[in-house]
């Protein structure tokens, strides 16, 4: 099946006074129709940036400096603002992190829904309103027909995120970019919202790019997962494989740092060091200063995504040309 979304070698730059910062470097992945791709990584790894680039809403002065983004085989990264506007909401829906600030406080949720539906589907007010009530019911707002005239502040956080989901879905886009949709919510609400999102995506056949740093959410929701580090994809593959048998040393460290619930541990595992700043990304593999398996080649040459069996990892360990024993040599030398 041809992919719904294809990102090829995406590069995002921020020109600053002290030089150009590269926030995303050579990011490539695709999402099939109906598929949920999870994107994980530390803060600043470029997860949200990737989402923003796809919906064409990078914060200035950020700009796409290279690569392509294709939706249904058509490039969307070079569209004019007004052409892209017709795609946003209609083809690609977006959900943001904080439902308390995502809704305009001065309009009723009904106004905001009707406005979105009318913009994209060209229905009259009565019909748009009928659909709006339908969407509120679908996202589980009780007494939707009455609550439609409520203002955002009259809803709780979880309910507001449901409204945001309704807003993102109401023009029936084929792809949803969900940027940390549960991070700002109470833990007890998170599961409900994720279940709702997952259920709606399945029912409507909507693809989803789910950005989060919550591995639990990914494991439960995603079909495939991409692990990002310093603006690059470190590993990408089926969620089970990446979680159970991570190949890239960074993904391995990330998975090991999830505290186990079934036994007591004295020390939580952690990856030493911190992710490099964008202005100081090391030569070669960006992870090399922190990598326990680092060897000579990692310091000079940047690895591309290499097949490791079930997943692909950007790591020289999986290049048959690399010296297998090099890591040992480095460590003892």
């Amino acid at each position, binding site marked *: 099946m041809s992919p719904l979304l294809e990102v090829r070698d995406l590069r995002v730059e921020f020109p600053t006074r002290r030089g150009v910062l590269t926030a995303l470097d050579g990011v490539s992945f695709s999402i099939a129709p109906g598929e949920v791709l999870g994107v994980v990584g530390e803060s600043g790894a470029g997860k949200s940036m990737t989402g923003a680039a796809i*919906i064409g*809403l990078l914060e200035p002065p950020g700009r796409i400096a290279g690569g392509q983004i294709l939706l249904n085989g058509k490039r969307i990264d070079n569209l004019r603002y007004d052409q892209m*506007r*017709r*795609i*946003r*909401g*209609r083809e690609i*829906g*977006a959900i*943001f992190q*904080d439902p308390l*600030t*995502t*809704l*305009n*406080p*001065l*309009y*009723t949720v009904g106004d905001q829904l009707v*406005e*979105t539906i009318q*913009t*994209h589907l060209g229905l009259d007010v009565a019909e748009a309103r009928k659909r709006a009530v339908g969407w509120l019911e679908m996202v589980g707002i009780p007494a939707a027909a009455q*609550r439609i005239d*409520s*203002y955002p*502040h*009259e*809803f*709780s956080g979880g*309910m507001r995120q449901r409204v*945001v989901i309704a*807003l*993102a879905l109401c*023009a029936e886009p084929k792809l949803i970019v969900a940027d940390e949709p549960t991070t700002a919510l109470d833990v007890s609400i998170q599961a409900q919202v994720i279940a709702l999102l997952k259920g709606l995506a399945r029912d409507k056949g909507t693809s989803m790019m789910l950005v989060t740093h919550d591995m639990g959410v990914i494991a439960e929701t995603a079909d495939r997962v991409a692990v990002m580090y310093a603006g690059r994809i470190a590993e990408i593959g089926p969620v089970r494989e990446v979680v159970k048998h991570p190949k890239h040393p960074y993904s391995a460290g990330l998975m090991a740092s999830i505290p186990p619930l079934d036994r007591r541990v004295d020390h939580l595992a952690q990856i030493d060091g911190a992710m490099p700043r964008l202005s100081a990304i090391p030569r070669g593999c960006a992870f090399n200063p922190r990598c326990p398996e680092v060897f000579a080649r990692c310091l000079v040459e940047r690895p591309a995504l290499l097949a490791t069996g079930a997943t692909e990892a950007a790591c020289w360990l999986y290049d048959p040309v690399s010296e297998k024993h090099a890591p040992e040599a480095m460590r003892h030398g």
Partner: protein
Amino acid sequence: MLAFIISRILQALPVMVVVALISFAMFAYVGDPVAIMLGQDFTEAQRQALVASLGLDRPFFVQFAKFIWNAMHGEFGLSYRLSRPVAELIQERAPATLELAFCAALVSLCAGVPMGVYTGLYRNSWLSRFFLTFSLIGVSLPTFLIGILLILVFSVWLGWLPSFGRGDTVQIGWWSTGLLTASGLKALVLPSVTLGLFQLTLIMRLVRAEMLEVLRTDYIKFAKARGLANRAINFGHALKNTLVPVITVAGLQLGGIIAFAIVTETVFQWPGMGLLFIQSVNSADIPVMAAYLMLIALVFVTINLVVDLLYYAVDPRLRVGNAKRGH
């Protein structure tokens, strides 16, 4: 809603009482009204009679209560200078000042808000830079200088507009209006621009700052992500969210325009309350000054109430009481 209005009015009462006290105190501490009214030549019996007729021999609180009582009936006594009832003088002058203030406010809002939106949206365009430079001039030049410059250009050099006075007015009841005659409207232009220019630049800069703030918010980003048209985002979603602070400042500024039209009225010899006030100050005409003070306080209190009601209309979060929170 009604309870809200009543509570605001109750809050305003102490303000009015304090202002009344200050106005009243002027009679006691700024000069001796009896001496002023009697002039050079008088007998002790005449003085006693006047003191008694003015009620000045009675205790302070009785005098103050009488002052309030009269003020509530619109009676502020006789002007020392013109020997006419103060209420009548103010009634004569108020329409001129109110029309001038209204036009100045209209000028400042109708130009200031769109200019603020424009400079907020297109921060780096040359027109925005021009507006900002221009607004700096508006803020920094004193009103009288702007007035004189406008007179020089439009009255003296070009001869398009009159340099002083209200032009022809039409009497509607006790209200004399200059809005219905061509010469009245022409006469309004220069003073309104002079008086409104400072507010215009202030409102423009405020709207710009608020727009920049609002355009960064998540709900604007989300509105863009929903693919709404620019027009809907900029004017529906963004501008409406800038309105609360703009209403506050514009409201207070309107009070300021009415109260401090003095300079503009002097420059243009505008027959309004400001001119009346400055003439009264020159001749220590205390009843007029006291009444003016009370009137301006009333204007500010009223405007504040209107501003509060406008908040209520703009921002649903303030309409508490009927809001039921979800779970």
